[in-house]
């Protein structure tokens, strides 16, 4: 059975069809949320909340995009709302904690990929999310604009500016001029 058929059945109230869609897209959703939160625990919690929202709004899903795209749009909005509700300091501490864990894991394996994640983690979500959606997932600017409910031009400029900021910080880190833990755009 194709995705569109599962979607149509789910919209008509078929619980098995919706469960199939969730199961097929669960791994994709959690992996996306791991890249946003840097934490498996938070990613799984947000995935549960995303499914709850999807169950409520499945009848409104127009089927123009893939089901996975719809799910990550919901997940992104939930993540942004959650961060807004949390106290800024609290959310920053959580991310720092997650980053320390990742750094430790990477260093144990003698790898340096955590440097890039650390720099990306210091970016504001306004920049980080469009970069992730554009360059990792390959979504077009208009798709990202629709997902984040912002103008296409804003997405383009955020992707461009965000990359410049990360590159700048990585270059400065190499020269040892930029203190670790200080943010570029976090303030």
């Amino acid at each position, binding site marked *: 059975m194709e995705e569109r058929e599962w979607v149509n059945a789910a919209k008509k109230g078929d*619980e*098995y069809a*919706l*469960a*199939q869609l*969730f*199961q097929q897209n*669960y*791994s994709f959703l*959690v*992996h996306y949320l*791991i*890249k946003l939160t*840097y934490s*498996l625990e938070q*990613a*799984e919690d947000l995935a*549960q909340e995303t*499914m*709850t929202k999807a*169950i*409520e709004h499945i009848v409104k899903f127009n089927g123009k995009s893939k089901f996975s795209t719809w799910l990550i749009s919901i997940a992104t909005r939930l993540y942004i709302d959650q961060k807004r509700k949390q106290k800024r300091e609290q959310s920053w501490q959580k991310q720092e904690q997650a980053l320390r864990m*990742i750094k430790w*894991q*990477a260093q144990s394996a003698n*790898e340096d*990929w*955590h440097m*890039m*994640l650390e720099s*990306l983690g210091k970016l504001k979500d306004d920049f980080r999310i469009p*970069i*992730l959606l554009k*360059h*990792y997932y390959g979504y077009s600017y208009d798709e990202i604009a629709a997902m984040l409910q*912002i*103008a296409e031009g*804003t997405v383009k400029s955020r992707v461009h500016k965000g*990359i410049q900021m*990360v*590159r700048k910080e990585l270059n400065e880190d190499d020269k040892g001029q930029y203190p670790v833990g200080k943010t570029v755009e976090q303030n």
Partner: protein
Amino acid sequence: MTKDNIPSEKQSSKTEAEFVQSMNHSFEQLEQSFSFTTPDVSFFEQKIAEQKKQIRKKWRQDLLLFSTIAIIILSLMFTAFFQQPYVFVLLQVMTVISLVGYTGYEFKKGKGRVRHE
């Protein structure tokens, strides 16, 4: 800066491509550093059933709340209309003013949001 020192457009896009490649590699490594299992279909079915039950319960509660408030408002309106007509007129005028004020405020807020984006 001499002409030789200025990076060409081709070089710049190459370094950007390399940067994106390295970024994607980091994301892949991050993905691999966490392992989890996908639950089976029955888990999702159970979750959907529970959630739908919750939605129905909430809908019933909302409907009850709406009906109760509607009955209270209508009772007050009828009482005012038959017992004290001037209070009824005053309430109508206040409702219209509040609605116009609220609509204007929302409109202004919406315009502001668009300007910021």
